[in-house]
């Protein structure tokens, strides 16, 4: 035995497959118990310096991406490829085999062979092909001397189902590898009215150029009556060279995709600044101001002065704010307004609608994954392959009209590669039909 065949046999063995699957299953447990991706100080604190060092050596804090875990996945892939290459030719031979080449002796020797004998020459009246057809079997036949052999089969190709499943697993791996090398995952915080051309990659903690500009127009949180968050929403606009090309309101579960890069709503951050919107009722003129807490600002053209003098917050979230407003030489007025709602101030003859809201930054997950479609195709192929592999079986039947024996005989045998109990029922149905035909 050459070294090559030894290696080949090793990688094509089911033992290796079962060993790899068992090891993958068992080691995967580790990462569900020991928190992943924490800074090294965390492990020292919780497990002691020595254990933490041991973890570091084995890459436990990042075990699903460690050399040994990826090595196991690699072994599984090699195993899948080689065992499939090893077995496929033999299976293909069965799928495409000429089943009429089977000798009558083999038909007789099959464990489920049944025989009928004819005292008269009635056997000549029985049309075997038609009888089979009635039962859903389309048969081909061959004359062997005075005798005739009929053969029929169903879903021969279902034998390749298992290889379809194996291929699908490899497809999913290929998709994951494409995503790893040609995609990225990152995140970015964009303040309201602010924009960014970069995101921060997780992998090397560096920044990545988007190649376009992303602006956050607004961010809002909606709440249920019981105070639970109902929706996080950001209005985003994509700009190319200062030109707006796409605007979309995103929510959790409803991201924005542009040029293969997808932005997902993932978090937010409340600022101590406020966004104040003032509209002059008569002219409809409007302007937005970013207002730091307890700082006075002015709208020079309109001779307006304003500020947020106080605010009421639940945790980090401002629920209402106290707006101070002064128009020209008129006396100043102060009013509490709820976050994100409006009020009207009058200054002399003019009216101003003022809305105030806390300023937020929206937290976005950013992902580019050109491999994801390969993964999805792999998933569909897997479901299809599993269905074929488990629910379809290659059923074969042979009928032999033996006219050479002293009494003319009819032999029936069959085989199925799966669901033998189901096939036994199919076969007994067929036998009943033959019984009827013989007795008629």
């Amino acid at each position, binding site marked *: 035995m050459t070294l090559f065949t030894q290696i080949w046999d090793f990688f094509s063995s089911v033992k290796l497959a079962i060993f790899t699957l*068992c090891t993958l*299953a068992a080691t995967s*447990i580790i990462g*569900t118990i020991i928190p992943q991706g924490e800074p090294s100080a965390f492990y020292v604190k919780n497990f002691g310096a020595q254990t933490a060092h041991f973890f570091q050596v084995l890459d436990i804090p990042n075990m699903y991406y460690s050399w040994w875990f990826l090595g196991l996945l690699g072994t599984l892939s090699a195993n899948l490829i080689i065992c499939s290459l090893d077995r496929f030719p033999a299976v293909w031979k069965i799928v495409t085999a000429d089943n009429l080449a089977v000798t009558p002796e083999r038909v007789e020797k099959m464990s489920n062979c049944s025989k009928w004998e004819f005292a008269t020459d009635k056997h000549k009246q029985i049309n075997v092909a038609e009888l089979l057809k009635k039962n859903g079997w389309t048969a081909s036949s061959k004359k062997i001397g005075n005798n005739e052999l009929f053969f029929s089969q169903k879903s021969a190709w279902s034998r390749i189902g298992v290889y379809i499943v194996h291929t699908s697993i490899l497809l999913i791996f290929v998709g994951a590898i494409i995503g790893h090398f040609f995609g990225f995952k990152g995140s970015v915080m964009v303040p309201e009215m602010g924009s960014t051309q970069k995101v921060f990659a997780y992998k090397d903690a560096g920044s990545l150029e988007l190649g376009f500009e992303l602006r956050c127009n607004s961010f809002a949180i909606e709440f249920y009556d019981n105070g639970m968050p*109902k929706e996080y929403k950001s209005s985003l606009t994509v700009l190319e060279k200062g030109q707006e090309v796409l605007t979309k309101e995103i929510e*959790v*579960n*409803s991201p924005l995709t542009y040029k293969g890069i997808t932005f*997902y709503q993932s978090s937010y951050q409340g600022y101590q600044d406020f966004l104040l919107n003032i509209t002059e009722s008569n002219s409809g003129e409007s302007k937005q101001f970013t207002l730091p807490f307890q700082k006075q600002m002015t709208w020079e053209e309109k001779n307006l002065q304003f500020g947020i003098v106080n605010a009421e917050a639940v945790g980090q979230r401002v629920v209402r704010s106290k707006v101070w407003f002064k128009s020209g030489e008129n006396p100043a007025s102060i009013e509490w307004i709820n976050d994100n709602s409006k009020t009207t101030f009058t200054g002399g003859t003019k009216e101003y609608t003022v809305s105030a809201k806390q300023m937020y930054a929206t937290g976005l997950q950013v992902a580019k994954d050109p491999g994801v479609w390969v993964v999805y195709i792999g998933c569909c192929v897997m*479901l299809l392959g599993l269905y074929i592999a488990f629910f379809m079986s290659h059923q074969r039947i042979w009928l032999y009209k033996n006219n050479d024996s002293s009494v003319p005989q009819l032999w029936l045998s069959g085989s199925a590669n799966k669901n033998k109990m189901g096939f036994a029922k199919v076969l007994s149905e067929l036998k009943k039909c033959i019984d009827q035909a013989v007795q008629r």
Partner: protein
Amino acid sequence: MDSSQLLGITTFTYMFSTILYVAILVFKAPKLGGIATIFTAVAWFVQTAGLVLRWIESYQMGIGHAPLTNMYESVVFFAWTIILLYLLIEWKFKTKIIGAFAVPFAFLAMAYASFSTELSKAISPLVPALQSNWLIAHVVTCFVGYAAFAVAAALGIMYLLKSKSPETNEAATSLSSRFPSPAVIDDIIHKTMVFGFIWLTGGIITGAIWANSAWGTYWSWDPKETWSLITWFFYAIILHARYTRGWSGTKIALLAIFGFVSVLFTYYGVNFLLSGLHSYGSN
């Protein structure tokens, strides 16, 4: 009549179903068979009505969503799927003895849902992450899988009782003598496991697609994901052992039971013992 009353009734009807099926087995009373089946089917319809009503009630509260969003609702749905699968198996394989092993799982699930103080039974609104059309697809595929594995484990227990009962012990022999033949039980175990495996695969896939549309990552090695994969590996190993090594009988029956332990940990243990993205399932 509100949904919680209907689901409360279901707990007791499943208990009674369990008693009926056990009675058929213990008191050799096959005449009870029809009654047990009809009773269980009616109980299942009551539960279905309860689930539908709960769905409607959530819309009346203005927070409409399918009743599949927290631990309580999932346990109720788990019981519902077990009974549905069991009734299908009873109809397909024409045996009522399995009921004495499968129906108790549904009863225990309902009893846990009804009487546990850890689970909140209130209909609560959905957090943003759960507001997705993938919710129903993901939960249904997973739980059909889980229920199939529960039935496979029930059959595994049955197989072990059948094969382990000593011939000399008359009572035990007469009890298990009314079980289907070991070959038939073995066949049904295999079929339910294969069925569960395909649905578990579907559950993992729908979960991955959902995760990708919510967070931009189809796989993040979160404990729930990882445990579902461990369970998937486990059943993949069993199926390979059967197809390529010809394992059957006692070995497969034992593995069906161990597999279900892994399912239970994936479903239940992870939520309470480990932390992760699925933490909203813990209340």
